[in-house]
């Protein structure tokens, strides 16, 4: 790792160091966790906030975008009830049957969460803040692995400042019948920074669906940094699904890091429609043969929203399969970014990797930046990528209008059809319907 020493710090960059200094004594964790934090903040101090001259951040200049650093959100007893969920996520999503875990300022609100249900189902579960005080070996291993990745500033800052989140382990062979729904809700009153780390560990042959939804109570400007690490033992399966519908003042930084064992399957699905600036990173590393991943989703953006989806799939071992499909609907002056990197190591023969990003531009001033990167060191592989951007097809629009659909309804139907292709990755009908409903709501037309 090449740690260049930063010459100059912006005010916000310095404010992050100050935030750490001010908070460090109160941050949860034992001595080993404190060491991780210390090392992470040093990494950050060396790198600063990523900017456009850093290749992975070419289209999303975080240093330019972040002017102020609000204080860490304190645990709040802000009232949260069913109406808050519906306002934040829409009715269909809020009512999805699941083991619900509600996090406010990163802290688990036990009175709103079905922790007992999870434990009864055989899941090892705890609030991260408590578990960091004497972390079990599996948790420490996950934290160490995330820190070892080193030069990702987003993750380094998260390690330094994480105050909340959950740690969840599925023992060998356990199949969860209901999804786990981690609901992150913040921003009731004052602006604040929220750093959460979720750690998911799936034992051999275990399987579960884990939903994460991000919403805002009220409208206060939240800066969110949320990292989830997923460790999949052989033959396990995790379907990891996200809805981000935060208020327009929000800065949303999110990284999912998955390590996938032999014959295991990690599928990620994300829909982003909120926040002023969102950066969604998903990185998947294949550690064992015959594993697979499908990473798909959609971005719906308007106004001046900026939404960046950056995927990295590392084929380190032979015979693994990766699929990526993202659909972006961009209106007004919004900007959508898709970066997809597929790295195939020399030994990773029989790799099968495909990537596709497609943007539908609804205005002249919307912008789509797409950057596929294929680094292939093996010689017996099938890899492909594609990117398209276009406008609504006027001939299709005319066909629908000639059948009596008013223009707005015809447009909405075509946009939904475009986005809907990404939703095919969801095999759970209730979840698929919930996403169709939130996207229909975004389009301003009621769902069927």
């Amino acid at each position, binding site marked *: 790792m090449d740690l260049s020493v930063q010459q100059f710090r912006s005010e916000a960059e310095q404010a992050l160091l100050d935030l750490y200094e001010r908070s460090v004594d109160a941050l949860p964790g034992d001595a080993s966790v404190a060491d991780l934090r210390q090392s992470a903040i040093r990494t950050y101090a060396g790198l600063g906030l990523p900017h456009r001259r850093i290749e992975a951040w070419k289209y999303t200049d975080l240093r330019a975008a972040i002017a102020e650093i609000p204080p860490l959100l304190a645990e709040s007893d802000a009232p949260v009830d069913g109406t808050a969920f519906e306002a934040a996520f829409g009715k269909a999503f809020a009512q999805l049957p699941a083991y619900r875990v509600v996090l406010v300022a990163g802290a688990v609100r036990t009175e709103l969460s079905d922790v007992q249900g999870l434990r009864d189902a055989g899941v090892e579960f705890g609030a991260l803040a408590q578990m960091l005080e004497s972390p079990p070996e599996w948790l420490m291993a996950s934290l160490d692995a995330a820190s070892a990745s080193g030069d990702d500033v987003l993750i380094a800052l998260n390690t330094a400042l994480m105050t909340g989140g959950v740690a969840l382990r599925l023992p060998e062979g356990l199949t969860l019948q209901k999804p786990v729904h981690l609901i992150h809700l913040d921003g009731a009153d004052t602006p604040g920074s929220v750093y959460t780390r979720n750690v998911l560990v799936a034992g051999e042959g275990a399987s579960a669906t884990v939903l994460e939804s991000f919403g805002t109570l009220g409208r206060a400007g939240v800066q969110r940094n949320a990292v989830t690490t997923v460790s999949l033992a052989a033959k396990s399966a995790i379907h990891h699904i996200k809805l981000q519908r935060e208020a327009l003042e929000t800065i949303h930084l999110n990284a999912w890091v998955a390590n996938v064992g032999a014959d295991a399957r990690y599928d990620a699905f994300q829909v982003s429609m909120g926040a002023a600036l969102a950066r969604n990173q998903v990185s998947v590393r294949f550690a064992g043969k015959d594993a697979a991943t499908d990473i798909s989703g959609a971005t719906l953006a308007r106004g001046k929203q900026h939404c960046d989806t950056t995927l990295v799939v590392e084929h380190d071992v032979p015979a693994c399969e990766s699929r990526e499909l993202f659909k972006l609907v961009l209106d007004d002056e919004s900007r959508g970014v898709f970066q997809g990197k597929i790295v195939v190591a020399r030994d990773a023969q029989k790799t099968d990797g495909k990537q596709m990003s497609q943007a539908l531009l609804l205005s002249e001033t919307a912008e789509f930046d797409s950057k596929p990167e294929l680094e292939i060191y093996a010689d017996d592989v099938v890899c492909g990528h594609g990117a398209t951007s276009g406008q609504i097809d006027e001939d299709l629009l005319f066909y629908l*209008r000639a059948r*009596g659909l008013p223009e707005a309804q015809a447009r909405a139907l075509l946009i939904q059809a475009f986005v809907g292709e990404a939703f095919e990755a969801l095999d759970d009908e209730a979840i698929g319907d919930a996403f169709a409903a939130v996207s229909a709501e975004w389009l301003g037309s009621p769902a*069927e």
Partner: protein
Amino acid sequence: MLEIKNLHAKVDGREILNGLDLTIPAGEVHAIMGPNGSGKSTLSYVLAGKDDYEVTDGSVTWKGEDLLAMEPDERAAAGVFLAFQYPMEIPGVATMTFLRSAVNAVRKARGEEEYSTPDFLRTVKEKAKDLKIDMEMLRRPLNVGFSGGEKKRNEILQMSLLEPGLCILDETDSGLDIDALRIVADGVNALRSPERCMLVITHYQRLLNHIVPDRVHVLSKGRVARSGGPELALELEKSGYADYGDEATAA
């Protein structure tokens, strides 16, 4: 019922319709024939309201109203239906969802009550059966992967569901084998009624054996060059369009 007077229309700056006059009384079926490039399809698009077709002169009156002043969806609500020569494929929209959205949009615009789900399904089932359309086909995305015949039958299904007053069939016979042609023609004939008029656009006489018109008009260079009874179609079948400026046929 439909009255077209001195219609001039341009596409991409080129004049295609050049003073077309045509009147179709209620209950009648009129056929428009003519060589390629005579303006047959342009007429159908102008009547349905496609954007890039610019009307520069003339008028179209439908049931006493100015059709040209209406948006495409308003025309559909007013009872104008165009069966497309090339029906559009729309991945991601289930045919059934599309049918239901269209029918309910038109019913709403006409001040009628929207169908309930069971009523709608029953109606579709009945009409689909007559057109030999499998319900499984209607669960597929609109026209995606449909054969030529399936697409055209789907157009006629939409026509019967939307209950139009003016049915415009644009080369509905193209790409159909004889069995499919018969099914489509039977579907169209079932819709003939004293309250409805039809405009059947075709290059070949063959369709008119099955859908027998009251009047036949020959289009040439953007205007009606000749009109007559059904026998005119037979005559054209023998002589071709050489007299009407079709160079391909003349050569």
